[in-house]
């Protein structure tokens, strides 16, 4: 199909950030984690995707997320891609890099972990890449991303 006839599943934005290839179930979590209350946000959920079957797309208009801001995505939505849009054009696009440590983006799933009992940010160190495995810096338990709930 020529580009001119391609129907966008989610409204285009002139400037800002597009997060694509989000596992569908994580779409609203991504919105709550990354979008500010006054951001203009466009959301697509359960969209068809040749790559991942069903996916979510989140577009945040007028704001370019840094890799650091987006790093939590690697834990909540592994494989998601991040595009920076300027004047309707993609000027940068890449899969969200996995940081060495995820700081304060998820609660520890161990109910006896000290971070669930004290006001203290969580830290999860990456101990395996494929599949992604993390380890709580405090209680030293290992987890798959799906076992953790975002903060």
């Amino acid at each position, binding site marked *: 199909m020529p580009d001119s006839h391609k129907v966008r599943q989610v409204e285009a934005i002139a400037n800002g950030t597009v997060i694509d290839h989000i596992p569908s179930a994580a779409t609203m979590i991504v919105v709550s984690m990354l979008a500010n209350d006054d951001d203009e946000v466009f959301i697509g959920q359960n969209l068809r995707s040749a790559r991942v079957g069903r996916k979510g797309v989140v577009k945040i208009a007028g704001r370019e997320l840094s890799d650091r801001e987006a790093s939590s995505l690697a834990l909540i939505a592994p494989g998601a891609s991040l595009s920076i849009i300027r004047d309707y054009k993609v000027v940068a696009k890449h899969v969200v890099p996995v940081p060495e440590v995820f700081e304060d983006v998820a609660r520890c799933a161990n109910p*006896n972990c000290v971070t669930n009992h*004290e006001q203290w940010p969580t830290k999860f160190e990456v101990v395996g890449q494929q599949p992604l495995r993390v380890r709580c810096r405090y209680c030293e338990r290992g987890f798959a991303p799906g076992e953790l709930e975002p903060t």
Partner: protein
Amino acid sequence: MRPVAFAGRNIISIADFGHADLIAVLDAAAALEREPRPRLCDGRLMATLFFEPSTRTRLSFEAAMHKLGGSVIGFSDVASTSAKKGESLADTIRMVEQYADVVVMRHPRDGSARLASEVSRVPIINGGDGSNQHPTQTFIDLYTIAKLFPELRDGTRELTVAFAGDLRYGRTVHSLLAALAHFRCRVLTVAPRGLEMPEQHLAHAREAGVRIDAVPSLTDAIRAADVLYMTRLQEERFPDPLEFGHIKATYRVDAAMLAGANPRLRILHPLPRVNEIATDVDRTPHAHYFAQAGNGIPVRQALLAMVLGKT
């Protein structure tokens, strides 16, 4: 891993220590056992913060500090502290570090000692954080094994260490396995179904080159092992009291069972024991658990002196 200077260092998790570090602690403990240094920590103050009771660990640390000439303050009953009033752990540490040169803490939450170490300007020694780590017990276990079997250090013979009992929840066996992975060892495991050693601990040791085999009974372990490390079975892990009764009888060593033992065999236990080692074992040459507890003094002296920059 290169050895790291110990002065000012925290003792939180055995995973923080490499082979050279472990050897440095064993050497320092041996030196203090050979030649006591009653003035080594003159003028230094240790705070013991025991948010949950542990008579053995606290007394052993306090004895160790007194024998180095240092002083001790602390509490062993959380009900009498500000934590009971809702003070955060971080604030308690920020207060105590104003008074003490080193802090030894035991706390019911996993990871509490690591959190404290991120707040504190003085070294934190973990005396047990929930079900996570108890690194000084591991140093004691390792020191005990190295004293009994010098080949652990020189690697001239592969040492066989058997772990028996609750290998799933017992933090001492997880940590000791991690420490042994730095040496030439074979490991045997004997555990009731459902209380086997978690795969993540086994995998880590195997990656380091440790041969690990599960054996069906204590008798098999007794015949083959140089060291039998017994742990306590906790009744609350068994929903069925009948099953607990049966397992308790199976995971019990008595003197009669030791007739076919490897003559070198020594039995260790982090204590307290309940039923898993019959008292008639105490009179056999295989019993070594009380001597192991005694090793707590030189090992904890060594750790205190090292983090205080005195050795």
